[in-house]
């Protein structure tokens, strides 16, 4: 990231920064797994097993998550495609 930024390769540096953030968040999630919310008394920790809903709730969650993620990705691609390229600093505002 530092090398790319110093060579004015902004896109590569931005991608590296994104990977760094993803790694941090993923690392935190995997470090904690399967605990969702750790407690000082280990037995009271909330894990994905002792907080999981019933069969129906998990299915609704999975289907809804796939639907929601698809919508989020579609929205993400639409917005970033719509506003792709460099912005004009002295352009229109509101």
């Amino acid at each position, binding site marked *: 990231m530092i090398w790319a930024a110093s060579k004015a390769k902004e896109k590569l540096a931005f991608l590296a920064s994104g990977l760094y953030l993803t790694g941090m968040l993923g690392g935190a999630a995997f*470090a904690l797994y399967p605990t969702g*919310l750790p*407690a000082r*008394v280990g037995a009271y920790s909330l894990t994905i097993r002792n907080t*999981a*809903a019933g069969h129906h709730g998990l299915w*609704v969650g999975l289907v809804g998550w796939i639907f*929601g*993620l698809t919508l989020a990705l579609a929205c993400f691609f639409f917005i970033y495609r719509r506003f792709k390229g460099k912005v004009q600093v002295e352009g229109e505002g509101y």
Partner: protein
Amino acid sequence: MDSRLLVDCLHFAFPQLYASSFSGFYLPRMMALWLLMLRAIGIEFRVHIPNPVWESFFDANLFPGQCAAGDFLWSCLRQPDPRSALGPDGYFFEPLWTNWRVGPNPGILDWCTVLAGLVALAAIAVHGALYVAVKTEAALAARACGLAVTVSPVPSLLTVASLAATALVRPTVMNITGNIRSAFSCPLSSSGHWPP
């Protein structure tokens, strides 16, 4: 709407985890929302009052407002700390701070979580500067890129310090490899919840 749907899915699948996390960390979440309001106010009102004093005031509002993004990331990074005073009923409350130490009576803010917050803030600042560099050109892009280069070592150093602090406070979380293995075998091992 779509991101709200993703949060609702967490509520469907793990209702107690969602309820306990949100109620226990109610104050930090509310603070993040207040910061987001400041951000919106800074962006929306700046151009409506053509006065240097008010423009500076709304510009200054943007800084704490943008810190909300770091605040959200910090919330995720601080999770490995076993501070939650969760009881057997799954509820807890923690003051915003107590004595800033890691010990039997910690608050939400102590030296370790503040360090995680600084990591988040520095990482988001560099990421934002690089995004500005990608989206703009000429002098502004060069300035943003230069700022990113100057500030880049800070999140790297803070990340190392934060990792060392986490290893000191809770050594078990460093077993990431084993956790990754068990995480990807989760659908098989949790077959009790997923009958064919």
